[in-house]
């Protein structure tokens, strides 16, 4: 009787069934899509972090630059007689490379790496030295009146950075400059199990071997190599020295780039930057994921001046449109889901209660002929439950179609992951009449302050494009079914409760 009655009610009261099912379906579809996209965004964030920090990195240890109030650490170029040449036409050609720790970052010592390695729970630790190679080149016109102020100059160039700042006006009039920068990461050549290269695969050439220690050899990021038209066997100038390209690597994740433009042996990088025994980051792999918190606490105690970041901390450093997407999903998407879900539940509850009210005589009659409150409640709850499940199935199907659409479109979103504190403070360009341009690592590297002189920037930020893939998981499907069942049960329980409260005498009297 239960199933017969249930089937008859659902098929003969189609309007109510359809409205409740549609409301529930909309909500479930939205929840499925938002959940799936949230999963995709999370995976994208993990991918971005992997591209920067490598696979298996649970903790990173870095050290941020201590502000001193002086100009120390600012990228500066010293043009004396060296690096400049007169053109004979009243202009001077300038060109100089500089290899240094990125602004905002400071270095850790080899002993710090040893400290980390010996910390309980640490499976492996690798120290890397991330540098920034900046090449300034350009031509300036000699100006007879060196005392002229910047406002007197009439250039056609553009200024980069804020219009005012500490570096102030220069003394040149006319000319053009370009700043080309890319990231250089010095890594151990011993094949460590943790570090930036663990999330890459070799596409051409060879990887580092122990024999490469101290040599001027470089492995390039595939995207950077393509943008710079470099191949295995070519040379790349780093810190004024030519490095031979031995291999090209690409990201194994969904990121379009790896964590750095170039990779060179750690000892070579330390020697070139005059930072013997120094590293900028230590990549830490924990023996167990449950140890991460403990290790972080221990490292914070031992390395008081260093910044210890877990994967969760690093995720917050991801910025760009991926961050926007994450924010949208976690804020708007979640709240929209909650609101729509609440509305669907409310619709189901109101329609069920309204249905019970409309069926007062029916339930009163059933009570009069001996139906118990429990049986009537089960009947009402059963109807609501099935309506909810119908909505849930339709919603899950609609949600899967939505996910399919997202995956077919495969939206590409960009993301930046920075491992050091951003520091501003540098003044504006202040190069009247000059045209300053900056090529920043063919789009794969931030860090080099655009405009050369102006504005601070993230010191070791890596920008990458990630294809958003919305995964369909069993959890998402179970979530959809669970919510549908929950909605049906809540509506059914309230409707059944109301039906059970009807006293048969009053129910019959109300329609007499």
């Amino acid at each position, binding site marked *: *009787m239960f199933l*017969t*009655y249930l089937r*008859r*009610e659902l*098929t*003969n*009261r189609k309007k109510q069934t359809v409205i409740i099912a549609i409301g529930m379906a909309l909500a479930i579809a939205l929840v499925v899509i938002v959940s799936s996209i949230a999963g995709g965004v999370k995976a994208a964030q993990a991918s971005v972090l992997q591209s920067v920090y490598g696979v298996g990195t649970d903790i990173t240890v870095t050290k941020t630059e201590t502000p001193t109030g002086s100009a120390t650490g600012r990228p500066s170029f010293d043009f004396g007689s060296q690096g400049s040449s007169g053109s004979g036409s009243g202009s001077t050609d300038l060109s100089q490379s500089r290899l240094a720790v990125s602004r905002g970052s400071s270095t850790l010592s080899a002993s710090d790496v040893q400290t980390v390695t010996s910390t309980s729970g640490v499976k492996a630790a690798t120290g890397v030295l991330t540098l920034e190679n900046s090449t300034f080149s350009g031509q300036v016109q000699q100006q007879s009146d060196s005392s002229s102020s910047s406002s007197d100059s009439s250039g056609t160039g553009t200024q980069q950075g804020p219009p005012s700042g500490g570096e102030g006006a220069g003394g040149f009039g006319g000319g053009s400059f370009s700043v080309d920068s890319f990231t250089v990461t010095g890594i151990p050549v011993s094949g460590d199990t943790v570090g930036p290269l663990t999330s890459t695969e070799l596409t051409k050439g060879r990887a580092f071997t122990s024999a490469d220690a101290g040599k001027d050899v470089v492995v390039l990021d595939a995207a950077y190599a393509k943008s710079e038209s470099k191949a295995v066997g070519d040379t790349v100038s780093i810190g004024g020295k030519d490095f031979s390209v031995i291999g090209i690597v690409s990201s194994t994740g969904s990121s379009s780039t790896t964590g750095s433009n170039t990779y060179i042996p750690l000892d070579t990088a330390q020697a070139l930057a005059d930072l013997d025994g120094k590293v900028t980051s230590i990549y830490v792999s924990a023996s167990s994921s449950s140890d991460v918190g403990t290790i972080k606490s221990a490292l914070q105690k031992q390395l008081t001046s260093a910044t210890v970041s877990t994967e969760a901390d690093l995720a917050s450093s991801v910025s760009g449109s991926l961050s926007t997407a994450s924010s949208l999903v976690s804020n708007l998407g979640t709240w929209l889901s909650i609101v729509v879900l609440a509305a669907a539940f409310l619709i189901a509850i109101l329609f069920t209660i309204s249905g019970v009210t409309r069926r007062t*005589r*029916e339930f*009163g*009659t*059933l*009570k*009069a*002929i*001996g*139906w*118990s*409150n429990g*049986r009537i409640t089960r009947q009402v709850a059963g109807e609501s439950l099935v309506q909810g499940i119908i909505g849930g199935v339709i919603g899950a199907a609609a949600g899967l179609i939505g996910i399919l659409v997202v995956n077919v479109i495969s939206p590409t979103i960009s993301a930046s992951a920075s491992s050091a504190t951003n520091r501003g403070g540098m003044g504006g360009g202040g190069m009247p009449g000059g045209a300053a341009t900056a090529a920043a690592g063919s789009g794969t590297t931030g860090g080099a302050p655009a405009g050369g002189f102006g504005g601070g920037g993230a010191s070791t930020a890596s920008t990458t494009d990630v294809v958003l893939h919305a995964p369909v998981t069993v959890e998402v499907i179970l979530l959809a079914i669970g919510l549908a069942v929950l909605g049906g049960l809540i509506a059914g329980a309230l409707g059944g409760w109301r039906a059970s409260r009807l*006293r*048969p*005498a009053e129910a*019959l*009297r109300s*329609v*007499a």
Partner: protein
Amino acid sequence: MPGPTTGTTPVVAGPDSTASTPEPTGAPVTSIDTAPSAAEASRASRPIYALKNVSKTYKQKNRTVTALTNVDLTIPQGQLVAIQGPTGGGKSTLLQMLGALDRPSAGSVLLGDQDVAKLGDGALTNLRATEIGFVFQSFNLIPTLTALENVETAFAGSLANRSRSEIRDRATAALREVGLGERLDHLPAELSGGQQQRVAIARALVKNPSVLLADEPTGALDEATRDEIMGLIEKQWKERGLTVVIVTHDSWVAKRAERRLHIKQGQVREV
């Protein structure tokens, strides 16, 4: 005497063949009937209903409405009783007391040896499921269920444990008995008023109750159909030895009863 909660045994079984009620006309037509035995007949002198000093008051907003006042009433088993009276006089309230739909505010309502005033909700529900058949003025069929399924809804309480096939067989037999063997799969909306009331009567009788309570059973019917329905009720009353209580405004219907009661301002008197 088994109590009503046993479900399958009537509170008071069998008609009193020596009483003023009409003689049962013969053997049961269907399996739902039970022929009165001599032993049962010997118990028939016991009243099926005994109301003692029953009062019922309702709270309506800030005022108290008295529907029944100190009613004393005894109804022998197997009697056909008609209750008449003006609107608001207490007819329906009295029927609800007899039907275990409500408890009295004071006094006792004995159905067999069960006091409706003292039974819990569960016991009252089972009493209605097993001992009392209801027929309503508006038929009160479930609109989404077929005639057969409507009759099957009567198997509630302890009767719900019957097998699916038994329930179907008995419901089918009950509908055939009221002349609707060809209308088993029809929805109420596809039946005439008289046919719907026949379905309601089949639903009330399929569980073989001790008492049939009818609230204006012909109130929504034309004269010809009214006669048919009353004929059907009288036939069942005679054949089953049922106790039948009919609330009606229709004097023609009331005159068919062997006992007539008039209720006014909550007080009952014999006519």
